[in-house]
């Protein structure tokens, strides 16, 4: 059993770097030392809370005492922010329960090998990541496509063989017939025919190899995409929220596509070039080792030159790409917000801004093109030096009678076969790096552990009872608690309204009921069963939710309703829509339930969309209903209609409802007022008014606003 929980911090009181350690011991004491010197050692007696206070680029932990005094315990850079939050959790648990719960494993934020920071959400250090292991894993996944790839490689080898025959035929043609100005014409025609056939077969077999490679690479990308998408669907909200939608889409679509391109292009070319290189080398060495040496003499210089050239050019083109991307984003932004631009009369300012950016892009592009126009021909000239050497010395050897013209022609043709793989080899590391990066990103998603695990043997009890929160504490970031020690008991069939100012944790409370997150401390129970003990599917089948912003998928009205219960009968769909007050408007549309509603339901009004959402929530006939500002975006009249539907529905169901407009919670049996993450007041509307507390103030403030608006 661990006796001490420690936090390494890196800034002293003057904000100078230090090697500090903050310790919490089972005996309820906190102490700190920095650079070997002990700073303080104090008891937690009289402490109310340990909290993180984030600054800009730094943060601190302080201890809040019951008598109002506050003490800074340590200061740190942002690298220690998350672990500082964990430290506070451990200390606060002790303060609340007087028992020390020291976690066995502590999350590390730096790589143990190189000391570099670990990227959030990743347990491996990208800097030290073993590329071989990524490649090995990628190859393992290629297993189902092994046969197709083998066939493709055989095709490539055969195609290369036919391609290499052409210079050999050329040599025979020149040496045996053309240079001697004799020979039957039929032989020359036969040789020309053989060259034509070799070239034709090379192309045909190459097409077959391309098809095989494409089949394997598309299948592989499809496999990766499916696996990544499958995993995405199973990840928790907190895992998903660490990344932007764009990032997730890129990983599923673009990264898998990069891997596909690598296999279909780089893989195919690589093998082809390698085979060519080896065969040409053997032929050249057998034919004339001295001339072969001349071919390879400039190779090291050419390879280094090309590598430098591509690196230099890549950096410049990357900058051009970034400039272009910036222009695109400005354009995207302005076109999206064109209404705002016009309403402020800022067209000229925006034109100026965009012109400035395009001017910079034009400057970079022009400079790059100039450089390219200068450097590329120079590089091509340089790589041709071997050819000149072979021609010079080869011609000399022909004049001396030591070499035939055919052999020289064959050599000059093969030189291009040698330099092509070389050019390819120079760009290969970059292609490989891009593909590896994409693979790592896909594997990262595949490897991510879900932080909302399903229990192996779930207790899927009927969820007909009430909902209870027992000492629940939770924060989206461990150092910023949103709910603090919340205990609520909602009885079966009771409607409870949750009220409070913005940001007090109302939505967080219902997110926990839906188990989109697990509490940091305490438990949420339905029918007495901890949500972590039942399967998530069982929970979601029994809870119906209506959000403020309803998302409707592209499809028909019918499709959107049965989304919640795919096996619903048509009668159930109509019944749900009647219950949600949606049937009336659906039936008036020419295509009724088969009306296609656009992405996000744009073709129907906000009120209608909300009624569809209610119908979707109730089609499962859930015993628990959650309404998160379900009617707040609607006008009073539409709200009244929907409220009417809702009142009929909530009878007998345990309902948790959040509303800013307090009048919408008139039917609630009880109201819970949240303030600063805690339950501040609880009771009926009348009881709370009598208390003249937060709820009373909220009601009075809304009445005042209502009167002013009138």
């Amino acid at each position, binding site marked *: 059993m661990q006796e001490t929980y420690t936090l390494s911090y890196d*800034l002293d*009181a*003057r*904000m*100078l*770097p230090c090697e500090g350690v903050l310790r919490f011991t089972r005996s309820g004491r906190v102490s700190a030392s920095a650079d070997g010197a002990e700073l303080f050692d104090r008891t937690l007696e009289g402490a109310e809370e340990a909290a993180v206070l984030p*600054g*800009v*680029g*730094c943060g*601190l932990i*302080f201890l809040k005492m019951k008598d*109002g*005094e*506050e*003490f*800074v315990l340590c*200061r740190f*850079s*942002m*690298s220690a*922010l998350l672990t500082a939050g964990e430290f506070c959790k451990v200390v606060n648990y002790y303060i609340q329960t007087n028992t020390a719960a020291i976690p066995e494993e502590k999350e590390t*934020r730096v790589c143990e090998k*190189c*000391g*570099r*920071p670990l*990227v*959030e959400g990743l347990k491996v250090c*990208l*800097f030290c*990541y073993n590329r071989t292991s990524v490649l090995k894993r990628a190859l393992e996944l290629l297993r189902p496509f092994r046969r197709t790839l083998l066939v493709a490689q055989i095709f490539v080898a055969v195609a290369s063989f036919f391609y290499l025959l052409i210079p050999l035929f050329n040599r025979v043609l020149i040496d045996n017939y053309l240079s001697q100005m004799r020979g039957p014409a039929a032989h020359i025609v036969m040789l020309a025919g053989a060259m034509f056939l070799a070239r034709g077969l090379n192309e045909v077999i190459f097409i077959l190899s391309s098809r095989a490679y494409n089949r394997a690479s598309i299948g592989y990308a499809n496999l990766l995409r499916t696996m990544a998408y499958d995993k995405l669907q199973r990840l928790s909200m907190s895992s998903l929220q660490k990344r932007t939608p764009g990032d997730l889409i890129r990983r599923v679509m673009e990264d898998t596509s990069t891997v596909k391109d690598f296999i279909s292009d780089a893989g195919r070319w690589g093998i082809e070039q390698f085979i060519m290189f080896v065969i040409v080398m053997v032929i050249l060495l057998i034919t004339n080792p001295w001339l072969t040496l001349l071919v390879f003499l400039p190779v090291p210089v050419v390879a280094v030159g090309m590598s430098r050239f591509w690196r230099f050019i890549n*950096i410049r083109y*990357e*900058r051009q790409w*970034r*400039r272009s*991307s*910036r222009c695109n984003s400005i354009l995207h932004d302005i076109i999206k917000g064109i209404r705002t631009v016009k309403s402020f009369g800022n067209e000229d300012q925006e034109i100026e801004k965009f012109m400035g950016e395009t001017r910079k892009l034009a400057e*970079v592009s022009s400079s790059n093109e100039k450089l390219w126009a200068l450097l590329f021909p120079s590089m091509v000239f340089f790589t041709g030096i071997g050819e000149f050497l072979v021609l010079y010395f080869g011609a000399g050897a022909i004049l001396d009678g030591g070499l035939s013209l055919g052999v020289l022609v064959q050599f000059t043709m093969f030189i291009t076969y040698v330099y092509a793989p070389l050019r390819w080899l120079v760009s290969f590391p970059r292609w490989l790096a891009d593909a*590896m*990066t994409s693979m*790592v*990103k896909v594997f990262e998603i595949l490897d991510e552990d879900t932080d909302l695990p399903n229990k192996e043997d779930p207790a899927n009890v009927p969820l007909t009872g009430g909902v209870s929160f027992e000492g629940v504490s939770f924060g989206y970031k461990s150092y910023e608690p949103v709910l603090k020690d919340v205990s609520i008991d909602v009885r079966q069939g009771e409607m409870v309204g949750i009220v409070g100012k913005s940001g007090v944790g109302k939505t967080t409370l219902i997110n926990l009921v839906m188990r989109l997150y697990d509490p940091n401390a305490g438990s949420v129970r339905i029918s007495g069963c901890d949500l972590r003990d039942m399967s998530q599917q069982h929970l979601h089948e029994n809870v119906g939710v209506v959000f403020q912003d309803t998302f409707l998928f592209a499809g028909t009205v019918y499709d959107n309703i049965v989304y919640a219960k795919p096996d619903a009968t048509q009668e159930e769909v109509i019944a749900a829509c009647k219950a949600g007050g949606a049937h009336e408007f659906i039936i008036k549309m020419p295509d009724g339930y088969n009306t296609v509603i656009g992405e996000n339901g744009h073709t129907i009004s906000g009120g209608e969309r909300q009624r569809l959402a209610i119908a979707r929530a109730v089609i499962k006939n859930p015993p628990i209903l959650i309404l998160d500002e379900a009617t707040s975006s609607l006008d009073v009249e539409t709200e009244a209609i929907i409220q009417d539907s809702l009142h009929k529905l909530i009878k007998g169901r345990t309902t948790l409802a959040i509303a800013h407009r307090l009048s919408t919670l008139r039917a609630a049996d009880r109201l819970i007022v949240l303030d600063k993450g805690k339950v501040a007041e609880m009771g009926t509307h009348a009881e709370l008014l009598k208390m003249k507390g937060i709820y009373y103030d909220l009601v009075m403030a809304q009445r005042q606003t209502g009167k002013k608006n009138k």
Partner: protein
Amino acid sequence: METATKLTGLSEAIDLGILDPAQAEFFETPGGFTGLRLHGTEYKRVALRRAMPIAQPSSYISVADHENKEICVIRSLSDLDDENLRVVTAELDRRYYCPEVVSIKSVKDKMGYVYMELRVTGHGETFDKNCAVKDVNKNIRLLDESSLIIFDVDGNRYIVPSLAALDKKSLKRLEPYLF
């Protein structure tokens, strides 16, 4: 004939709550925080926030109480007397931590992240920092033509106040990310 109604100026309609420096006494608490005595009220912990930390770090400093309710705004640090200036500057230095980059020892692109070894200086001391930067387009940001700020994956900030002051090698290492 209609008479034009004079519009109320924004500064007349909205009280900025500018602090009268003569009335304020900032002090350091034994617990390591900064407090304020103003008009007979003692605030045991105040938060100082720059309204424009990059463009105007010495002007418009918001002073809020421990519940983040704004008490007043310091128009300019130069309005404060020596003692208040010392306490306020020290608190701002503790709240805004952004070491300056002296040189860049290495930059390596690994799997879409840029790993940098920086030599930085903060509060008069020079030291080395290893950092990883994700999405360089967003997190290596030019503030103007000559200065830039780097945000690493943890949320740490490093400022290059003058690109021209960097040595040639450092600038070359940084160059691919300047656009």
